[in-house]
């Protein structure tokens, strides 16, 4: 399993702070019994049942209240369902800590939906409603995946295994009105590449973690666009011990009482000679009570590489507002226009604008 922190250097160790935890109503064995692949799920449950829900201070989130039974989402896709998946062992093979181990296990054990895909080509996935899902994608050629989620509650995992020399273009469009805990794991084999455009719009709390492990000469470029009028905590994690590349260039828009949290953990081990790593987060604070937090951290044990990180925040620049107002837009229109432009500066599908408008209006 890929652990988030490996704070060891020679004989030295550093303390890793664990979140406080809380006991809450939880799913048990009787639910697993009624789900397909129950024996597989039961194995994971052994670990799950001993972990309580984390208390996330930054998100002001004390666990979450689960629906009485795992909800079943409306799924429209041209890929296979996770229930038809012959590769469930991938869940164990490519396992990771995520934003919190509890939730990675929750989605793997109690999923009622998900996608299982192997191959290349164009895939579209649309989920509507509440969901606990887990997804597996094994990409062996050139693939273009577009995923849409529109709902109130979701706990989800996705594992992407990008085979040698393969190319993945991934677009995620998400709208959440309640709570979402999302964990994504990319395993990128030699010389494979990923471009990930990720729009997350929320009126509720979102905790998302993107874990990346890349082999030699793998590349990933992530463009997160996050807007929230509640709280969104997004974590980008990578660990490298060979030459590869990861770029994260995040834009956030914090609306009303919203809070955007961008975190980065780039763990670069000895051996990543010639690697190229960059994480940048910029957030616009739209309203007086909007806030932002950034922790773009770097852990470096290799000297011959390029690694940089940056973070900044600002209200909407006065000169931009003035310019738009000089072309006849009132203050609110101008703000909305700038915020929307800031989120949709990269190419998203047409649904993106609708999601953004739902939270900007």
């Amino acid at each position, binding site marked *: 399993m890929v652990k988030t922190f490996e704070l060891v*250097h*020679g004989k*030295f*160790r*550093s*303390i890793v*702070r664990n979140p406080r935890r809380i006991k809450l109503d939880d799913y048990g064995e009787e639910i697993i019994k009624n789900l397909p692949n129950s024996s597989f799920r039961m194995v994971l449950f052994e670990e799950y049942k001993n972990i309580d829900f984390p208390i996330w201070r930054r998100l002001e989130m004390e666990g979450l209240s689960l629906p009485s039974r795992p909800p079943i989402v409306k799924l429209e896709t041209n890929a296979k369902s996770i229930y038809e998946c012959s590769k469930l062992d991938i869940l164990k093979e490519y396992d990771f800590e995520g934003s919190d181990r509890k939730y990675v296990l929750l989605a793997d054990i109690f999923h009622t939906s998900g996608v299982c895909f192997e191959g290349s080509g164009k895939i579209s996935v649309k989920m509507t409603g509440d969901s606990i899902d887990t997804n597996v994608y094994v990409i062996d050629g050139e693939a273009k995946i577009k995923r849409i989620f529109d709902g109130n509650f979701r706990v989800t995992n996705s594992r992407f295994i990008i085979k040698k020399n393969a190319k993945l273009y991934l677009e995620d469009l998400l709208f959440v009105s309640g709570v979402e805990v999302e964990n994504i794991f990319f395993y990128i084999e030699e010389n494979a590449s990923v471009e990930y455009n990720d729009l997350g719009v929320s009126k509720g709390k979102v905790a998302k973690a993107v874990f990346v492990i890349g082999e030699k000469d793998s590349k990933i470029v992530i463009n997160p666009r996050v807007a929230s009028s509640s709280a969104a905590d997004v974590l980008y994690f990578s660990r490298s011990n060979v030459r590869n590349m990861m770029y994260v260039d995040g834009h956030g828009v914090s609306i009303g009482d919203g809070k955007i949290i961008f975190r980065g953990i780039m763990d670069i081990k*000895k051996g990543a*000679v010639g690697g190229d790593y960059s994480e940048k987060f910029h*957030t616009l*604070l*739209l*309203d*007086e*009570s*909007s*806030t*932002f*937090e*950034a*922790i*773009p*951290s*770097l*852990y*470096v*044990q*290799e*000297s*011959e*590489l*390029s*690694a*940089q*990180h*940056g*973070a*900044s*925040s*600002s*209200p909407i620049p006065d000169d931009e507002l003035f310019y738009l107002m000089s072309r006849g837009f009132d203050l609110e229109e101008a703000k909305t226009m700038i915020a929307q432009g800031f989120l949709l500066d990269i190419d998203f599908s047409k649904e993106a604008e609708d999601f953004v408008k739902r939270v900007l209006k």
Partner: protein
Amino acid sequence: MNDVKKIKEVFDDRITESFDTEYEVLLPGLNEDIVKEISRVKNEPEWMEAVRLKSLEIFKKKRDPQFGPTLEEIDYDKVVAYARPGAKKARSWDEVPDEIKEAFDKLGIPEAERKILAGVEAQLDSEVVYSHVKKVFDKLGIIFTDMDNAIKKYPDLVKDHFMRIVPPTDHKFAALHGALWSGGTFLYVPKGVKVPMPLQSFFMVNLPSMGQFEHTIIIVDEGAQATYIEGCSAPLYGVHNLHAGVVEVYVKRGAKLKYLTIQNWSKSVFNMETKRAIVEKDGTMEWISASFGSYKSMVYPSVILKGENSHANVISVSLTGKGQHIDAGTKVYHMAPRTTSTISSKGISMAGGWSVFRALLRISKGAKGAKASVECTSVMMDNESRSDTIPILEILEQDSDVGHEAKIGRISDEEIFYLMSRGLSEMEAKTLIIRGFMEPVIEELPLEYAIEINRLISMEVEGSVG
């Protein structure tokens, strides 16, 4: 004191320890009797004894910080033994390890000072110099004395400022400090006085237990200005297992303090120092430091920008080498409108050292028009070392402008080659490059310190090149 209450609200458990973890630390020898004895021997007023006892209670309930280097190697028996009054500190010159003597030779420190620095002698024979300076100070109304003396002569002034911005509840080592503190400097600069020369704590090296739990209070009154140099400029011989000093700085309206540190503790020391400044309207606080020494460190000089239009400037350079795990950084709290801060850090890790730079920058709600920037550059001299950078930005005010930038750099072989092609040895070339990297701090220092830093750098490089 309202200030103190406000500060407590500011420091959540990210910065200090949380107050709710209860567990008993049993330390043989560290008990109420010891603490009372220290207080009695020092002939302290009752309130100070009360602070010590309260701190001891708090210490017993504190766990180690939940981040940073592991600290289980700290030998609290030794800590207590040295804190015990009357403990024998003087040693004979023969007992001083060769490594330290060698270092003194290289640094060109005069014999007399070497003995003090090595803990052999307790008196610095610089009375002549000092008494001249003292006349100037008396004329200006500047109080510059040791803490024991200050408690006796200026009891109210000390009481009002002692462990107010670093309360014993802050974290484990602040509590331990509160119980066992001894020695340190007290500086008061009266209203409007601009101190004509840098004040150096070097003059104060006349207390036997200096260097373990010293307490420093600096008050720069309205409109006054001063530069203070904390000179642990020579490699202090590690008689102390743990250094947990506290520095509290009060910068009043329109005042300005520049605090310079050259830290070069012996490489066996745990450096758990707490340094904090509170700045009133239009005031300026500058922490400027160059760090070379210690075994494990957790040091984060902080500034609380309490008054409108106050300013903080934190510049640090550090060299982390063989056998060191240095966790350092800074914290700046913007609590009032139009406050500004700049943080600039440069770190070098080499020869297997592990350096961690943390920055916490908070713009509180209401700090309208605040501006802050954090910039850090780390250089890795080899791939045996480790360099972590962990900045935390918390922006709770929309009308503020905050930016952070950091990168990992490397001294290129071409640079070294170029210098070597001009006849420099590898060591000289590296020293020169590191020296250039540290220039922002060095240029702030009086010449004699700058020269010492040069020597320290070449000693470190020599050690790593072999």
